């Protein structure tokens, strides 16, 4: 069975370590916050100017002045801090943020990522994604292995306009966990019940399979 988006978020949460400052992108990455392992402290950075982001507010306690980068109403946790957008990207650029999790339309075998534009069709803009991928020490991409047409999103080279080059370190898809290094996707884990052959058939870029590939654990 391929993973649903909740399970992808849950698997990514296993990558979190105590003391990490983490930036979570819009969509599945945001959901990672729901699965932070017990006993560790992670501080969430929202690039619109907040460290120490908390859960969504209770009904009736929404505050228009307190939102995340996806424009959703949120709360703060004890120890949080507000700052302006230049300082926010200053901490990203200077490598203070330990982990960035974001979505992608395409990833290439050398770690390039495309997630901001489909020429002639969709022009939403890059937001903070280009700044994040250009500077983050560790980037995990949360994505579906294939697009709705069934075509692989893990490619020898991206076809869409790039967001950043040689930056993706790890991918958690609905089918597999892969490390991106030395110009290839290295298969680390497979979704429960998903065969290595299926992952291979849905990966257009170079896939390295070494030894027995274990099933993911949550």
């Amino acid at each position, binding site marked *: 069975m391929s993973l649903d988006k909740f399970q992808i978020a849950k698997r990514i949460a296993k990558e979190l370590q105590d003391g990490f400052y983490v930036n979570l992108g819009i969509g599945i990455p945001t959901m990672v916050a729901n699965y932070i392992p017990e006993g560790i402290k992670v501080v969430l950075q929202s690039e619109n100017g907040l460290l120490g982001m908390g859960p969504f507010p209770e009904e009736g306690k929404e505050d228009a002045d307190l939102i995340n980068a*996806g424009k959703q109403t949120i709360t703060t946790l004890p120890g949080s801090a*507000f700052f302006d*957008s*230049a300082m926010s990207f200053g901490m990203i650029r200077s490598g203070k943020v330990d982990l960035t999790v974001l979505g992608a339309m395409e990833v290439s075998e050398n770690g390039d990522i495309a997630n901001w534009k489909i020429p002639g069709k969709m022009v*939403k803009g890059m937001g903070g994604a*280009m700044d994040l991928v250009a500077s983050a020490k560790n980037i995990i991409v949360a994505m579906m292995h294939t697009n709705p047409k069934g075509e692989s999103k893990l490619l020898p080279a991206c076809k869409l306009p790039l967001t*950043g080059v040689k930056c993706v370190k790890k991918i958690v898809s609905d089918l597999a966990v892969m490390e991106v290094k030395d110009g290839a996707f290295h298969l680390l884990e497979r979704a429960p019940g998903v065969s290595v052959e299926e992952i291979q058939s849905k990966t257009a870029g170079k896939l390295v399979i070494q030894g027995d590939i274990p099933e993911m654990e949550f």
Partner: protein
Amino acid sequence: MKKTFNNAEEATQDIKDGAVIMLGGFGLCGIPENCIAALVKTGVKELTCISNNAGVDDFGIGLLLKKHQLKKMIASYVGENSEFERQLLSGELEVELVPQGTLATRCMATGYGMPAIYTPAGVGTEVAEGKEIRNFNGKDYLLEYAFNSDFALVKAWKGDTDGNLLYRDTARNFNPLMAMAGKITIAEVEELVAPGELDPNNIHTPGIYVHRIFQGANYEKRIEQRTVNKKKEA
């Protein structure tokens, strides 16, 4: 030194056709609602707007778009506005998409008196086309220029009549940076107080950067994505 104005109409009356204006805010959070409403009312045209987002179809900068008052938009993310996407794809509107950190830092550079910055954001992408690339310590960086703008329109929580400003929560975002960057900076505040009423330790934007200030009225402070945790059933 009189910086105070009665309202947005008075404070923005010399913004003419073709002006380059910065507008603070992230999404609809911390946007200068009163100033935008005043510009919609005067109908000033051919504006170049520098702002992180372009509002939504019926609020924020979206109101200026709907009346075709913009010539050019410089922003990082415009996905919330279908009229924007339509004007962009049809070629009616000139658009420069800028990485968000680059946008913020180009504003900061202006306010700090620096002509340009180097940033890694956009290296190897179409953002880098035509730009100077320089390698520092083995990594490539793009040269990006500080912004020139005629006016900066910002929104603060509290301000005093000397122009000192204090922002609230994530409504701070681009506001202090743009306040520093405007040739003429116009600040609208929810609460305007006398000098001395704000603690000097807590000033986010010193009044030297602010040329005009007024107390705004009828703030809607619209929420773009109202998201809540449902209360547990009793």
